[in-house]
């Protein structure tokens, strides 16, 4: 009871202009059913907790509680060399380690002024888009799983993901903890055989997207469950710093691949799908459409990639001592804007190391989307945010 009151006190303290939906006043405080969903609830993607106050099955209050998976990532990184943090970035968003590597490498390269050879850039794009594809596929799978489809779409997604992970393993030696990128390129070169196998896998990916569409796109139950549920208005999304497919599903055209054109993204032709409603269905569909755009980029990259070095021969791997300064490297990770902010004081370790995790920042709007909905929709909205607890808690 006291916790509830203290929570309403926090609500009252929210700054003006936050555009929070009018807090729903329960008819009778005593009749609220307080349920602590998590940290070992089946649908919280690991160890996440939601303190939910229910009036019947309607959500009156929702307080996200995280930190159960806190591993002190940022402080650890400040105590060790620049290189030693690279394998730890794999473990942030462990569904898509490649993009984490990329963002960190980008930040350090900015800090030390390092150039990246062209073939390495192509490899980064290929791996990054494969990562995006498998992340979107499995996140949709998890979403439908939470809707109660006994895991069928998830298993299909994992079947495709398996093929992509096999490619990762062949190239980098590990399926998930790839530790692939280095400051100034990539760790190992891709063999022509690997590129051929990748082309073969990519050729099969659109068939999988079609299968997924066939299975779910026009399913009436899916529409009934997701359309109009968990609407995120574009103003709120922008104010809260939401990025990635979630922001684009709310209709805001913001894709860092287009905005920054980091790496060599401005060489590729691809479109950015936008949603008009900002509900769970839009988030689902935007991910589906982005998967198809990823296939486009992959086809172009695999066509254009040329032989060459994958690592700048002058680049130092270990013993980096950047000049004092700061750098912010950001990429369009599958979940949103992933940024690494580094301050160097000239020493071998970063003075400050900060991650901007898209999962955490996208999660901050959870309560706003969940107020007033049925408790069954909470897990759905939560699933549509697409988070990985490793990145939220770090």
């Amino acid at each position: 009871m006291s916790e509830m009151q203290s929570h309403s006190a926090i609500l009252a303290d929210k700054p003006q202009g936050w555009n929070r939906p009018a807090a729903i006043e329960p008819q009778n405080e005593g009749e609220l059913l307080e349920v602590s969903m998590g940290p070992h609830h089946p649908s919280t993607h690991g160890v996440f907790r939601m303190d939910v106050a229910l009036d019947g099955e309607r959500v009156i209050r929702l307080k996200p509680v995280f930190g159960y998976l806190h591993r002190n990532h940022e402080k650890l990184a400040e105590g060790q060399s620049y290189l030693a943090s690279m394998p730890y970035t794999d473990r942030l968003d462990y569904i898509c380690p490649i993009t984490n590597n990329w963002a960190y490498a980008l930040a350090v390269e900015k800090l030390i002024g390092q150039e990246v050879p062209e073939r390495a850039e192509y490899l980064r794009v290929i791996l990054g888009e494969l990562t995006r594809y498998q992340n979107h596929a499995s996140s949709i799978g998890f979403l439908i799983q939470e809707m109660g489809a006994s895991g069928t779409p998830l298993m299909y997604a994992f079947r495709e993901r398996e093929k992509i992970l096999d490619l990762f393993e062949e190239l980098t030696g590990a399926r998930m903890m790839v530790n692939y990128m280095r400051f100034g390129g990539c760790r190992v070169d891709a063999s022509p055989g690997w590129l051929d196998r990748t082309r073969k896998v990519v050729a099969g990916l659109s068939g999988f997207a079609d299968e997924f569409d066939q299975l779910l796109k026009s399913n009436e139950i899916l529409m009934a469950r997701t359309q109009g549920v968990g609407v995120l208005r574009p103003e709120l999304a922008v104010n809260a710093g939401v990025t990635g497919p979630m922001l684009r599903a709310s209709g805001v055209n913001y894709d860092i691949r287009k905005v920054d054109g980091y790496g060599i993204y401005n060489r590729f032709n691809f479109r950015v799908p936008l949603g008009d409603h900002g509900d769970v269905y839009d988030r689902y569909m935007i991910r589906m459409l982005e998967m198809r755009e990823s296939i486009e980029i992959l086809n172009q990259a695999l066509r254009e990639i040329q032989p060459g070095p994958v690592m700048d021969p002058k680049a130092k791997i270990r013993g980096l001592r950047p000049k004092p300064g700061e750098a912010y490297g950001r990429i369009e990770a599958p979940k949103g804007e992933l940024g690494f902010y580094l301050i160097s004081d000239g020493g071998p370790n970063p003075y400050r190391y900060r991650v901007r995790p898209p999962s955490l920042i996208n999660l901050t709007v959870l309560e706003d989307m969940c107020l007033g909905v049925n408790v069954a929709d909470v897990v759905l909205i939560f699933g549509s945010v697409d988070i990985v607890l490793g990145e939220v808690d770090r």
Partner: protein
Amino acid sequence: MSIVFYILAALTVAGGLAAMLLRNTVHCALALTVAFAGLALLFLNLDAQFAGFAQILVYIGAVAILVVFAILLTRGSETPKEGVYSRSWLAGLAIAAAVFAVLGWAVLQSARVLPHETAVPAVTVQQIGVALVGRYVLPLEIVAVLLTSALIGAVIIAIHEKVGHEKEEHK
């Protein structure tokens, strides 16, 4: 009067008593279900299949569930501290006695009118149906209209309450 009748009667009465005397309201409701079941079994014992099964379907399947639902929705499942017995028990007793008197009178009246038959009449469902829409169609329709209007009334009351709450919320 066979031994089965006495067992069933004892079950029914025990269920009824427990429904009155138990402290936990949900237990009371469950005990009431036992009484309903006993009654249904009594009907079956009399070879009145339709009445017996209808009793189970309606009373156990619907009424008992509605009772427990109502208890849960009003948060009555916790045992009140000040005891479960109503202070106006005297009035309740009077009403119960009056109802009992009326029922007893009716039973005695009908017993006098009906001829004493030893053989149990075999009543099929079809006969019941024909009787309901034939000879007793008027009472059936009256009851139906009454129930429907009660249903509509309940819905109207519920809608009014909900609208009122929403207005308060908007303020």
